């Protein structure tokens, strides 16, 4: 009998019976895996996050992230002590996430995969990337009225920026205890961009607006500035942009600076090709794996199954919708005062989620007019949205941290 008891205690069954809520988390992990693998919802991040949730919720594996508090004082331990006492997942979390290392590394990779060409060709459209940040701040205000602290509300609102690494970075700095649900909400809604943008666009746009043809508008009102040397411009631009942002919002430099560095090594070309390959493949992929697993491992039943989580899921959705709507209404406002009309779908792409939101907007425009290819125009607002959300995060961090 003692042997049988020993075998029972060796397995996770006993601990699961003591904490049945962990079964809910395991089911949630399996559902997220289904979304990532079966439905292809952002599989590159959702699969590692879901697997992290799965690993963290089997008792005895020592893979769940334990928040640092006064009693355990994890933050004051060395990395070796954390690994020895709390397991390797906690070591990875405190080394890579708590220090805020991984989101900037991912931004470097994103920068290496970003082309500023469309933005430089249509610079004026960059303003709509600013308008589409409204969801962040409106939801921040609403969350405060619901009882969230300012820091928590800011971390929740940043989901409206539709930028996973930015949301995670802000949550790490301002509300690390909400990191799991915020990451899940941010990446889930990014995966739902093909549903959210058409939903908001159909609610707010007329058929006439869907049919605004950007190329015809360009022929009627040609751009005044022409680029003669795009290659040189694309090399100089990230350097100048880095200087501007570093001077005005230094707290956003870890994100924007790394994004621009990644972009610079791409644009230089063959001379820095090895750095480009490392940033866009090796480092980006490695960082994505560890980010996903460790963020997933923060979602144990004790930290995730709270009323706040539901509010984060709802608040994140509202922030997303408001950001899309903000961009659309900014274009509508522009069209009221300008002769040259812009398709409001360009504004809808002002939230980040590059390049999916641009692709979705392009497909929507093509439904109404098969010759209306707005992808290049949408990318301008889309890329400026990445910068806009990183700057918004910088403002929140500098005021609240």
């Amino acid at each position, binding site marked *: 009998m003692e042997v049988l008891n020993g075998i029972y205690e060796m397995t996770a069954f006993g601990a699961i019976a003591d904490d049945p809520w962990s079964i809910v988390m395991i089911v949630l992990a399996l559902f997220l895996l289904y979304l990532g693998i079966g439905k292809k919802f952002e599989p590159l991040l959702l699969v590692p996050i879901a697997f992290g949730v799965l690993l963290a919720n089997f008792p005895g594996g020592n893979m769940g992230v334990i928040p640092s508090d006064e009693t355990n004082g994890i933050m004051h331990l060395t990395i070796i002590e954390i690994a020895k006492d709390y397991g390797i997942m906690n070591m990875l979390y405190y080394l890579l996430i708590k220090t805020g290392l991984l989101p900037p590394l991912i931004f470097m990779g994103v920068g290496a995969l970003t082309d500023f060409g469309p933005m430089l060709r249509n610079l004026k459209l*960059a303003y709509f990337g600013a308008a589409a940040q409204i969801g962040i*701040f409106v939801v*921040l*205000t609403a969350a405060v009225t619901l009882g969230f602290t300012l820091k928590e509300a800011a971390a929740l609102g940043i989901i409206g920026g539709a930028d996973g690494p930015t949301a995670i970075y802000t949550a790490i700095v301002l509300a690390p205890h909400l990191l799991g649900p915020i990451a899940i909400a941010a990446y889930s809604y990014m995966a739902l961009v093909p549903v959210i943008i058409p939903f908001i666009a159909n609610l707010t746009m007329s058929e006439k607006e869907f049919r605004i043809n950007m190329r015809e508008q360009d022929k009627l009102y040609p751009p005044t500035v022409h*680029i003669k040397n795009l290659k040189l411009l694309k090399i100089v631009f990230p350097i*100048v942009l880095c200087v501007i942002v570093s001077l005005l919002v230094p707290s956003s430099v870890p994100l924007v600076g790394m994004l621009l560095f990644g972009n610079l090594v791409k644009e230089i070309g*063959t001379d820095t090709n090895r750095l480009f390959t490392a940033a866009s493949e090796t480092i980006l992929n490695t960082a994505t794996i560890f980010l996903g697993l460790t963020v997933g491992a923060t979602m144990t039943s004790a930290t995730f199954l709270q009323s706040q989580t539901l509010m984060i899921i709802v608040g994140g959705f509202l922030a997303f919708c408001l950001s899309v709507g903000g961009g659309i209404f900014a274009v509508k406002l522009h069209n009221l005062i300008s002769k040259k009309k812009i398709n409001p779908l360009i504004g809808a792409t002002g939230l980040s989620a590059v390049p999916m939101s641009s692709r979705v907007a392009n497909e929507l425009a093509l439904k109404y007019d098969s010759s209306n290819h707005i992808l290049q125009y949408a990318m301008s607002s889309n890329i400026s949205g990445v910068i806009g959300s990183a700057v918004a995060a910088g403002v929140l961090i500098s005021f609240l941290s």
Partner: protein
Amino acid sequence: MESNLSNALLLLLIGMSTVFVILFIIVMGGNFLIRLVNKVDLDVHEVPFTKIKTEILSPSSEAAIHAVVNVLTQGKGKVENIEKI
């Protein structure tokens, strides 16, 4: 609660203004850069893409060979002739 709300509204104002100002500077700075770069007459060391008279390759395969040589030699190499061995 009220002070939190007023702080949140202040953040809304400051945050949105900052994002607009930064993107305004980026647009203005970008336009300035375009004009500046347009004026610069660069001595671009690009390897000329010489058309090779050959009947053994399709134009796309020839372009692929040029691109590979360009990457491997870091822009210094030049394809002069392609022969079937």
